[in-house]
């Protein structure tokens, strides 16, 4: 059995003042598990020298050097010297290591003030506006290069992006489109029943789905599915310094990464929208024949009679605009991404939010314009 030292001081340490300027720190007891270190340590005023003594010190672990580190910091604040030569060698070694480099003082964080906050918000909005315009300008230049034939864009990349943005999204777009048609028809049937005009569910679906809902729902799905993916992809490339590698080889990331994605999405959006429209019309038809008693032929005839193709054209135009906007938002947020894993998450979220806001604003503008222009 190893000899256990008598634990004389249950407190672990005491500070004894020997004269005006010196004090002795008595360490005692077991410092392996006990939390002596958590006791507050205050250095009396006027002390210039503290000597640590350890006659009654038992076993020790991390707590002892951690505590002495705290004492050391307190002494430093009071310009006092801490003498640890009497301590066991292991502790001295660790402390020598810990005190080899003096601590640095970080600049204090500025206090919150409304003025500073406003200034920051305004300058933030300013830089963000400039980066948007710069990005759109870059894209315009890249398109110019594309037409002059000096672009570094590879058409094969466009094709790969087309496959990712188009066919791979069929499943989700058809599901959402069909359910959208279903919901519109059910909700529409409530007022239609008041006037016994259930057959007009066809016109409701025709105008509602083709003119707007088809494009908007496809837009939302693609913003979440593809826009966010663009931001995550480009953001991760930014973290891995892949974008820097392109830049240093004088390959514009706009040509090489952004343009293929925007072109692919802009080509695919109207097709997906058309596909979603068809699914929606079928959804409406299902409600019509199953719940409202409108036969498939009546539904189709009424649809073609009352819904002019202009509705479809407006919807498809809207979806082209959406394609451009979602592509721009996703790629811009990706390229703006910081250099940490957390920043990629932020870029993805912000791409999604920006896309949705852009979708809603552009839909409002298009809707108002088309109504005034009587399209």
């Amino acid at each position, binding site marked *: 059995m190893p000899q256990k030292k008598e634990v004389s001081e249950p407190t672990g340490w005491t500070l004894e003042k020997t004269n005006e300027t010196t004090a002795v720190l008595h360490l005692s007891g077991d410092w392996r598990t006990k*939390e002596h*270190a*958590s006791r507050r340590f205050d250095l009396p005023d006027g002390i210039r020298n503290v000597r640590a003594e350890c006659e009654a010190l038992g076993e020790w672990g991390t707590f002892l050097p951690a505590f002495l580190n705290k004492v050391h*910091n307190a002494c430093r604040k009071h310009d006092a010297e801490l003498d640890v030569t009497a301590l066991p060698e292991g502790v001295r070694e660790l402390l020598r290591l810990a005190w*080899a*480099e003096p601590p*640095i003082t970080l600049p204090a964080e500025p206090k919150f003030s409304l003025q500073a906050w406003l200034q920051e918000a305004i300058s933030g909005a300013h830089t963000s506006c400039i980066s948007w315009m710069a990005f759109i300008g870059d894209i315009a230049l890249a398109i110019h290069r594309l037409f002059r034939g000096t672009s570094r864009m590879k058409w094969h990349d466009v094709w790969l992006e087309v496959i990712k943005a188009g066919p791979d999204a069929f499943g989700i777009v058809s599901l959402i489109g069909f359910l959208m048609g279903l919901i519109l028809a059910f909700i529409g049937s409530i007022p239609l029943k008041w006037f016994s005009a259930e057959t007009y569910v066809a016109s409701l679906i025709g105008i509602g789905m083709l003119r707007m809902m088809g494009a908007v729902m496809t837009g939302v799905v693609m913003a979440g599915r593809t826009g966010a993916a663009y931001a995550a992809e480009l953001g991760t490339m930014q973290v891995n310094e892949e974008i820097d590698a392109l830049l240093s080889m004088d390959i514009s990331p706009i040509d090489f990464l952004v343009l293929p994605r925007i072109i692919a999405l802009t080509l695919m959006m109207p097709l997906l929208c058309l596909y979603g429209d068809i699914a929606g019309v079928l959804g409406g038809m299902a409600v019509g024949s199953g719940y409202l008693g409108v036969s498939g032929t009546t539904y189709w005839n009424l649809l073609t009679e009352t819904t002019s193709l202009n509705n479809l054209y407006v919807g498809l135009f809207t979806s082209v605009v959406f394609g451009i906007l979602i592509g721009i938002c996703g790629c811009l947020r990706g390229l703006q991404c910081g250099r*940490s894993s957390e920043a990629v998450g932020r870029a993805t979220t912000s791409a999604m939010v920006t896309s949705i806001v852009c979708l809603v604003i552009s839909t409002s503008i298009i809707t108002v314009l088309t109504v005034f222009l009587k399209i």
Partner: protein
Amino acid sequence: MTNQPDKAPPPIEVRNLTMAYGERIIQHDLNFDIPKGSVFIVMGGSGCGKSTLLRHLIGLNKPADGTIFREGVDFWNCAPEDQTRIMRNSGILYQSGALWSALTIAENVALPLQQFTDYSPQTIAEICEYKLALVGLAGRGKLYPSELSGGMKKRAGLARAMALDPELLFFDEPSAGLDPLSAQRLDQLILEISNSLHTTIVVITHDLDSIFNIATDSVFLDAETRTMIARGNPRDLRENCPVEKVRTFLRRGK
């Protein structure tokens, strides 16, 4: 008496270990002990399976064949509680620090303490401050990993690995990406930790300076024969190893 402290089982014993990814065998028939308190180097050329061996020793990968004993217990055939205890008793410094980027470095060091101990927040803060001072980062606790240089990230990662005072520390390529002075400092730190805390240290590296500075024992993995071809203190191996490949490696190709 068989349970004398000096007869305690070594922290790691490897018996007939074969490591494989699916059908592809990385290394086979590895046999070695890592003695308590040693600084044990796993060396070998690129692609020989050093990092895979590290993952096996830590307990992240399961051996395709053979046994790994940790503290005398067969790691893959023991109670889950034993596995957790063994895992918690080791700290790992990953190649690029692997600090959680959403937390400050003090919070990084505090997380294992908050999760696995019942210390008061005050105590945890003091231990963090001490651990950060130990790796030369005193006063920098409030910084985020993205605000640190590569060397500082590694040192902060080391402070986190040591937070729970593990008896076993793993280092994955500690000197990779560091300037000679920072690498030297980190080697110094490894030696000091080994000397003053008697921690067993396992280092994966192919940095010769660092190998001769810190090693007390080593194993050499060969990429061609896919097994270990040398074992012992690298200084002795450099002079007396019967395998020429090992001597050439340790003499930097001369």
